């Protein structure tokens, strides 16, 4: 990963590269256990179908958050620092689904502390359905010498 996205390289309306991934049962179970989510609808198909009424087990929210983070930092590089994420879960994501992460830059701002912020609307799409949407605020360096990770206290206003 060589990317090191700078604030000046981003404009409202930009659309970062998409990320596509074929979801399998392993994707769901591995993600649930990695996020220490032991609830049966994320690993037990009988429970998911017969109790939850869904057609299979499905991706849990903390693991989806990890996918969103991966998608965003693939774009920004390691100097991108997440400030805020708001998720809205609209539909489950099942094994056999092909999920595609898409996004649009909705705002850019340098705050009073000098931190460069990018706002994006990100969607986890399955076909034409936005299964999960996420409004994101992420900080990126304003120049080559800046590093959002070094911001502390009043210098970090997510």
């Amino acid at each position: 990963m060589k990317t090191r996205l700078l604030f000046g390289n981003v404009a409202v309306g930009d659309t970062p590269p998409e990320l596509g991934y074929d979801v399998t049962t392993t994707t769901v179970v591995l993600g649930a256990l990695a996020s220490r989510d032991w609830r049966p609808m994320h690993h037990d198909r009988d429970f998911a179908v017969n109790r939850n009424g869904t057609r299979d087990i499905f991706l849990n929210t903390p693991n989806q958050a990890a996918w969103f983070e991966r998608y965003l930092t693939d774009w920004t590089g390691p100097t991108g620092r997440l400030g805020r994420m708001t998720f809205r879960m609209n539909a489950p994501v099942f094994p056999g689904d092909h999920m595609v992460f898409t996004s649009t830059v909705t705002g850019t701002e340098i705050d009073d502390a000098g931190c460069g912020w990018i706002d994006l609307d990100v969607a986890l799409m399955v076909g034409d359905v936005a299964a999960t949407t996420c409004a994101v605020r992420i900080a990126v360096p304003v120049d080559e010498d800046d590093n959002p990770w070094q911001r502390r206290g009043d210098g970090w206003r997510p």
Partner: protein
Amino acid sequence: MTTSSAGPPTGDLADIPDEVLARFGDVQYEQEGGFPVEQGYTWTTCSAVENANPLFWDDAVAVALTDGPIAPPTMLSVWFRPHHWSPGHTEPAVPLQAHFDLKDELDLPEAIISSNTITFHEPVRPGDRVRSRQILRSISGPKTTRLGLGRFWVIEVEYLNQDGALLGVESYTAFGYRRPGEGAQ
């Protein structure tokens, strides 16, 4: 303990038990995670989503950017999720206990999390002991959705490290409901 940002409850609360109303803004379930933050778990999570960010894999990058290894910010809630089993506990522990309390107290057997906001503050580092605390912020009046009749509520979870530094805040909006045709107990 009552936090300063506690907001008033909203909507028709006539049927809400007094003990629930009394909890608005109170800190509940302050607890420490069952284990210190460990780097192996961050690698497992990065592996699960094929996250190649060198910040989590390359110590030199971590030292240069963050003064040493950190965990992915979105793992914030992972560090306080209880073990499925531990000695002396006969029932599986559940995270977000304040949410499950409301389901019971309001007699709403089903619930979904409809939205979730996470705000990230200080990075989480290997060895940190993460503490969490839950705060009930609001309950709506009765609402009917396609799922059934119920109420929305908002619970915040604050995460702090062993030095008291704020690591992040999660705000959960949930809808607790009863399926159509299911009567109250």
